[in-house]
């Protein structure tokens, strides 16, 4: 990785009339990084991507690509290319002309453009399909054409707007690996927009979680999952139980019903927080066997999911979800069993709003 970030965003804001789509975000994307922007629809991730591409001008702020300010340049003057959602392949051109388009617009002569386009088509394993029209190809093939069309221009950064959204599950999983592999080989940054947290966790070096135009957390998949910065991130990434409460001291939180549980936090006493407990980190034990930090409840439903059982445990004031791996010989619990839910102090995170 070089010292200059591939993309450097400082205080970027985008307003559409009265709506703030992106609210003063700062972000740095290193060269050679697989970077995901993750969030629910309307969170501003696509707008941010479009601003990097030049399809949208920021209202305010600085946007640099390899140190050069580009925030006010039109798209055709930026060294980045985009793989569009649903690909935006030119329907009136064949595959070869689609892939050669950028080169031709850049003034590359026809012979060279065609040769390089063919090479790129070979790289995405579509050789022999040069003369097909996009409409004559499957979704997966179109996806590869879109990739080739962007990559043939040797962009310094590749932008991908939900590139796998239109594919079915199996194909999507294959393409995830393939994209990751391609990125590693090319060594350039991929900036990837998705609303699928699993996809983001699988593919990315780092993830930026966004909501309501604000950047909530940037970190590795592990950091995001294990140490969510706030309640929204905790809730959005994976499934989780959020138990509202107040900080008592550095290792205790008092829950809404008055139960004190062990949870480490650095917030001052009295802060309103939520204890974030992942279902697979919680355990159910038979009620009354003397475990220290347990919360008493009753098993409500039992769902068999193959490698595990998921219990919902009814507490006095809320429901908890607990996931228990299936082990040979373990006796499954049944609906109505009185239980106690426990966890290790290190297994939970304390988050604020």
């Amino acid at each position, binding site marked *: 990785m070089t010292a200059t970030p591939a993309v450097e965003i400082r205080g970027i804001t985008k307003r559409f009339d009265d709506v703030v789509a992106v609210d003063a975000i700062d972000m740095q994307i290193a060269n050679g990084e697989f970077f995901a922007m993750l969030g629910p629809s309307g969170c501003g991730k696509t707008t941010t991507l479009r601003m990097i591409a030049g399809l949208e001008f920021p209202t*305010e702020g600085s946007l640099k690509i390899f140190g050069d*300010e580009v925030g*006010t*340049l039109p798209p055709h*003057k930026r060294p980045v290319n985009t793989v569009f959602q649903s690909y935006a392949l030119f329907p009136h051109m064949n595959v070869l002309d689609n892939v050669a388009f950028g080169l031709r617009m850049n003034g590359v002569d026809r012979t060279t453009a065609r040769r390089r386009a063919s090479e790129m088509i070979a790289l995405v394993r579509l050789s022999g399909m040069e003369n097909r029209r996009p409409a004559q190809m499957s979704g997966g093939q179109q996806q590869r054409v879109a990739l080739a069309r962007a990559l043939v221009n040797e962009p310094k950064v590749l932008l991908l707007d939900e590139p796998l959204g239109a594919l079915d599950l199996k194909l999507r999983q294959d393409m995830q690996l393939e994209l990751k592999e391609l990125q590693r080989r090319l060594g350039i940054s991929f900036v990837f927009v998705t609303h699928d947290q699993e996809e983001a966790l699988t593919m990315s070096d780092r993830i930026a979680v966004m909501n309501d135009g604000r950047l909530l957390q940037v970190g590795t998949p592990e950091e995001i999952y294990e140490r969510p910065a706030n309640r929204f991130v905790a809730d959005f990434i994976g499934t989780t139980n959020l138990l509202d409460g107040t900080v008592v001291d550095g290792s205790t939180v008092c829950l809404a019903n008055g139960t004190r549980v062990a949870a480490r936090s650095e917030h001052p006493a009295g802060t309103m927080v939520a204890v974030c407990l992942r279902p697979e980190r919680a355990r159910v034990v038979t009620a009354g066997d003397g475990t220290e930090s347990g919360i008493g409840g009753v098993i409500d439903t039992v769902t068999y999911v193959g490698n595990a059982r998921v219990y919902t445990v009814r507490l006095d004031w809320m429901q908890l979800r607990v996931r228990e791996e299936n082990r040979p010989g373990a006796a499954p619990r049944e609906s109505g069993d009185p239980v106690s839910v426990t966890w290790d102090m290190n297994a939970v995170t304390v988050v604020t709003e």
Partner: protein
Amino acid sequence: MSVSEIATGDADEQHTVAAATPAFEAAAARAAARRGLFMALPAYVYLVIFFAAPFAIVVIYSFATRTRTGGISLSGWNLDSYQRLGEQIVRDVLWRSLGLAILTTLICLLVAYPFAYYMTIVSTTARNVMLVMVMIPFWTNFLVRNYAWRLLLSSGGPLSSVTEAIGLGETDLLFTKTAVVIGLVYSFLPFMILPLYASIERIDHSLIEASRDLYANGAQTFRRVVLPLSMPGVIAGSILVFVPSLGAYVTPDILGGGKEVLLGSYIVTQFGTARNFPFGASLSVVLMVVMLTATVAYFRQGGRNL
């Protein structure tokens, strides 16, 4: 396109590359707006000169005074021409035209609805063939279509020969109100069929099945499900037939022989032999107001397939 490019395309080049500011964003938006205006401008200017201006002149004339020689005096503004709308002879013309237009619209609706419905239930191939068959008269020269009826209805002509042969006696429909209505229905029936077809075709078939599942019989399903859902088409088609029928000029002339004075020819007379421009203008304004009201109603319905 190229003009606007030359005029605004270099805006990109001029600004220095710097951090984005609200001022830059606004400038970019203004540049885009300017490009749009430049592209619209030729047609805009053209329509202002050759449509809006003539339109305005007619409206202005409706308030002017007719001089003794049949010219226009632009000094005395008044509502005299509009007051004349109350005269018996004028009211007769207006009511007659209105009645004919409404009758035409109703007949078109009654003929077109079963036809359009049938189009939605036949096979795709048959449906496409039917669409083309409806389109052909729709695109055929208007004058030819009316003239064909003139020929068909002429006294001693083909229709008369047929009715005589089957023992119904001679028919002499030409230059009657009936002939005008036939001509108008013939001219504007496709305007009714196409929007009706479009709106019936859009109805989700599972709604009809749901209605049947909920114990409605065929007639009930039609009355309570199909008909209400096809109302946009009914309204669109009715307006598309009503407006041109009200202003019809060629059909009443060819098939009515100008015997019954209708609004269209009445207006033309004011600008021709009668040389009463202000009165003709006020009649035109009345026609335009009816037309605009109907169109606004149409757009309120969310229709767009004019």
